[in-house]
């Protein structure tokens, strides 16, 4: 008695039926004349969304294939030109082309930014377009469907029964309710319309997912606009260093330990840090590779380490003008020497402290020695004085007394403030929840129409299936149950 048609795929439905199923398809077929509307339709079109996502994927792919210039090189034309020469052997004649197209910094290129902006607009437009309709669909769904719908719905069945319409309705409702569907009944003269849905809030997951993406992008933007980042804050053990960037913070390293496995590979790096805010101690914490120190939205990470020279400098009157560890944080290009810097603003001088790289045996600068080179601040060229000094023996260089007190380590920190990160994390959480919501709770909708017939009643059931493919077998079972209850025979 049942006529359970094989599912027909959506293209088979005519335009008119699409309308009756209050379908939310972004793929519009008519293009209006009004340019504003055209633009709107451009942004809410799924094809636009698809093109933008694929465009972004292509740029990302380029970004993984081509060597990318360090973001720090941006704005430094000279350094960038030097860098470009280092990749020229690799890309040959293409180097100029790639450079002109911005492909060596794809993720800050005009293409990338353009697509991200369009994508954001498209995501917002889609959400604005869909959310009210989803709301309406969840709260005031359309209950009555026409003959055409039941004749063409992708999932459909018709059952003839000897039962009266009231009994038929009760059985249909029971079958839907057993599957946790909500049902709404609407009597329209002799015809009974029934609407049933399940997980009607599920589709809002798409809106959450789309909006959370814009939140993530906004967070990234806020981070770049109002955050800061210092990739190399070297703090000699026993010294305190200003953090800068208007934080009013300074950080002191009490100790630094590096540990190794027996095979020589590193096992742990740890710094005991003390953080001061406007000179007052606020936090003391051991910082490791995976355990940063967080103070508000400023975070300190363990990043690198090296040797430091504790130096004192006294002026001719004997007043000590410098007394601190100097991190030897730069290496010479041959990697034989490590270099640190002392700035002496009162004297208008800059001194470089040069030591042999640990493990290197250098004939000039021996262990326990440092070479001091003094320059006039701001002037390049020859040093005004250069001397090698030994630990604990003061030496008069450029009329100042320099003492190399002893060698210590410094710990290298990354300091970053990212006021946008919180939005990124909220967005990421919402993104995962939204996507899970869509897929774990796929919204399902079905309609039924019950009509009195001379020898009982006829029941038509129809449903649309768009993504949620498992609805198809479930629908079949539902129809079987109704059939069984009303006719006492289960169809094959």
């Amino acid at each position, binding site marked *: 008695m049942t006529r359970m048609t094989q*599912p027909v*795929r959506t*293209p088979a439905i005519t335009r008119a039926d699409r309308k009756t199923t209050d379908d939310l*398809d972004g*793929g519009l077929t008519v293009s209006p004349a009004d340019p504003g509307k055209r633009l709107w339709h451009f942004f809410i079109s*799924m*094809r636009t*969304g*698809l093109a933008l*996502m*694929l465009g*972004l*994927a292509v740029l*990302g*792919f380029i*970004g*993984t294939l081509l060597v*990318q210039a360090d973001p720090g090189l941006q704005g430094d034309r000279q350094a960038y030109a030097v860098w470009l020469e280092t990749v020229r052997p690799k890309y040959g004649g293409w180097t100029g082309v790639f450079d002109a197209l911005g492909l060596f910094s794809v*993720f800050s290129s005009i293409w990338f930014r353009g697509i991200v902006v369009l994508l954001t607009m498209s995501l917002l437009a889609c959400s604005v377009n869909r959310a009210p309709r989803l709301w309406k669909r969840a709260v005031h769904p359309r209950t009555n469907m026409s003959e055409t719908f039941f004749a063409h719905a992708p999932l459909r069945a018709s059952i003839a029964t000897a039962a009266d319409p009231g009994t038929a309705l009760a059985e249909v409702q029971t079958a839907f309710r057993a599957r946790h569907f909500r049902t709404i009944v609407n009597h329209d003269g002799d015809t009974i319309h029934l609407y049933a849905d399940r997980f009607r809030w599920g589709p809002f997951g798409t809106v959450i997912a789309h909006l959370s993406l814009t939140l993530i992008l906004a967070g*990234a933007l806020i981070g770049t606009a109002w955050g800061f*980042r210092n990739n190399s804050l070297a703090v000699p053990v026993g010294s305190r260093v200003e953090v800068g960037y208007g934080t009013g913070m300074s950080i002191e390293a009490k100790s630094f330990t590096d540990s190794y*496995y027996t*095979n020589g*590979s*590193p*096992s*742990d*790096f740890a710094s005991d840090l003390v953080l001061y805010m406007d000179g007052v101690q606020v936090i003391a914490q051991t910082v*490791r*590779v*995976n*355990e*940063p120190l967080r103070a508000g939205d400023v*975070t300190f*990470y363990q*990043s690198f380490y090296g040797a430091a020279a504790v130096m004192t400098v006294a002026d001719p009157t004997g007043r000590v003008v410098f007394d601190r560890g100097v991190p030897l944080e730069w290496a010479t290009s041959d990697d034989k020497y490590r270099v640190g810097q002392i700035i002496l603003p009162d004297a208008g001088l800059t001194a470089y402290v040069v030591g042999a790289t640990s493990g290197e045996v250098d004939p000039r600068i021996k262990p326990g020695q440092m070479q001091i080179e003094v320059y006039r601040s701001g002037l390049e060229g020859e040093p005004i004085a250069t001397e090698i000094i030994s630990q604990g023996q003061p030496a008069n260089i450029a009329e100042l007394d320099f003492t190399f007190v002893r060698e210590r380590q410094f710990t290298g920190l*990354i300091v*970053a403030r990212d006021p946008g*990160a919180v939005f*990124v*994390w909220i967005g*990421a*959480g919402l*993104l*995962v929840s939204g*996507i*899970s919501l869509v*897929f774990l709770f796929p919204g399902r909708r079905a309609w039924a129409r019950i009509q009195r017939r001379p020898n009982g009643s006829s029941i038509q059931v129809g449903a649309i299936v*768009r*993504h949620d*493919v*498992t609805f198809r077998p479930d629908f079949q079972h539902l129809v079987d149950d109704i059939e069984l209850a009303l006719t006492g025979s289960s169809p094959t």
Partner: protein
Amino acid sequence: MFKMSQYSFIAGVISIGLALGCYVLAIVAARLARRRMVMTGAGGGGTIAVGRRGASNVAAYGTLLAYLGLVFISASILFRTIASGRGPFANMYEFTVAFAWGIVVMYVYFVRRYRQPALGLIALPIALALLLYAMTIPSAIDPLGPALQNNLLLSIHVAVAIVAYGTFSISFAAAILHLTGGETGRRGLPGRELLDEISYKAVVIGFPFLTLTIVLGAVWAEVAWARYWSWDPKETASLVTWLIYGSYLHARVIRGWRGQRAAWLLVVGFGAVLFTYFGNLFFGGLHSYSGLS
């Protein structure tokens, strides 16, 4: 324990290899049966039935062997975890075995659910290739460098990725069958409608897991490298993968993109998965923990 792990591994490789052999045999038998049907005409019904049943029996043995393979590989990973005292996800060997495991788990799940061992014709060779590749790379248990010591986060990050990659390999298998088979599944293959469904179901599981993988990766990057996103090539490659599967989800509801074109997106997507996975070997970057460089 380490030895046990190695023995289970070998047993797993053999089981998967035999499973694959059974499937190939089943397909050949089915085709022969069909040819016989053509030759003998309508009167050859008996022969066909025998031929068909023989083929499906062989396929059933194949599926059993795939289960067995799963058990062995799981045991191998378990023994290794006990031997090393940490999550089994810290070098290229471990990633590779885990990837193969993910494919076999998902294959078993989908074959139980849809009864389409033809998927195994594509999915199992990938798993087998990964296992054989794992045999060629160093498998010693080395201590972890500082950045990898955040064990829980690392383990979850990789485990989640493995689920995503496993399901994507199933959608890839279905897409390949879709592109090579006919409308109703020529050559004893499942029909397109069903393959579409399988692909989509696989992506529906994989996509949230891939999203979670990237988010967890960002959390970890924030903790270990001071930055949730740094356009590291591996990160970027996983984003590209994510975008392709995202495109697929949208393409599926656009007229003109369903079916064939969507299947191509799944093929490209799986290409991106492999690129992300093996990317370590050629693009270095912060993720260069493979232990091979």
